[in-house]
């Protein structure tokens, strides 16, 4: 494994998005890793519809919250094809599901994996390197005030409440850290990203990790 790796450097990560006051982080993180998975396979990198997951993933609660696992399970079981964001744009509130004909082009998944990597963050780095950006669920209470730097204190595991995308890691410095994409806009944190110390399961970053296969 390289000491530093970031899928953004391979141009397979879309721009940071803003969930606004919609509690849809679970949908943003799942759609974001599907976008990257297709780009890694050589497809054009493009924004896919988060609103479609918010409205149609019937085993979740739209802008009132949801589970990345339920969203992945819904995508995998129904083989729904995610359409482009331009065809089903985000509107920051839950709505009625729009259905598309089978001829509609879109992006479905072939499967997904979900594991607890706590105490095995090196294995988690291998999974990121192998499969692409990962979905993670962290305790982000202290992220309300985060401005930058490496989160290594004031962020326990144990009460995960916010879904994010892990796009890389950097072990070149004295404090190794995960590179974590958020969905609170690019003005939050470090251009929309947070850095979380690797090792010690800071913020519970290794507890709930998923990857998608396309």
């Amino acid at each position: 494994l390289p000491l530093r790796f970031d899928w953004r450097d391979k141009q397979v990560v879309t721009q940071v998005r803003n969930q606004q006051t919609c509690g849809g982080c679970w949908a943003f993180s799942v759609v974001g890793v599907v976008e990257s998975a297709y780009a890694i396979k050589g497809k054009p990198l493009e924004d896919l519809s988060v609103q479609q997951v918010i409205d149609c993933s019937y085993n979740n609660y739209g802008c009132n919250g949801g589970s990345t696992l339920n969203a992945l399970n819904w995508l995998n079981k129904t083989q729904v094809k995610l359409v482009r964001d331009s065809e089903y744009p985000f509107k920051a509130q839950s709505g009625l599901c729009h259905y598309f004909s089978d001829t509609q082009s879109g992006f479905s998944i072939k499967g997904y994996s979900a594991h607890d990597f706590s105490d095995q963050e090196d294995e988690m780095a291998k999974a990121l390197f192998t499969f692409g950006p990962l979905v993670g669920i962290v305790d982000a209470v202290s992220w309300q005030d985060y401005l930058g730097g490496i989160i290594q204190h004031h962020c326990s595991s144990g009460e995960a409440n916010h879904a994010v995308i892990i796009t890389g890691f950097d072990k070149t410095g004295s404090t190794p850290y995960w590179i974590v994409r958020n969905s609170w806009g690019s003005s939050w944190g470090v251009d929309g990203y947070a850095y979380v110390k690797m090792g010690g399961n800071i913020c519970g970053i290794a507890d709930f990790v998923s990857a998608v296969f396309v």
Partner: protein
Amino acid sequence: DPADTFTPTGPRSREQQAAAFRESLNRHRYLNSFFPSENSTAIYGINQFSYLFPAEFKATYLRSKTSRFPKYSAAVQMSISNVS
């Protein structure tokens, strides 16, 4: 859970926003007071969420639910990947 008690009650008064902002400033001082010499450690301060009380922030932005995930086992994964 404070998030469960908070229900958005529409536009917030300036006093509420000011109180939340003051609380944020105090919290920033507290969070930044640890390990000040630790280089590269996180910095906390004023951002787009500073006008929210933690309960409001959590109720709006921290809505991801979890269930138990199986413990990753490198050995199992290796055996699977060895299958042709």
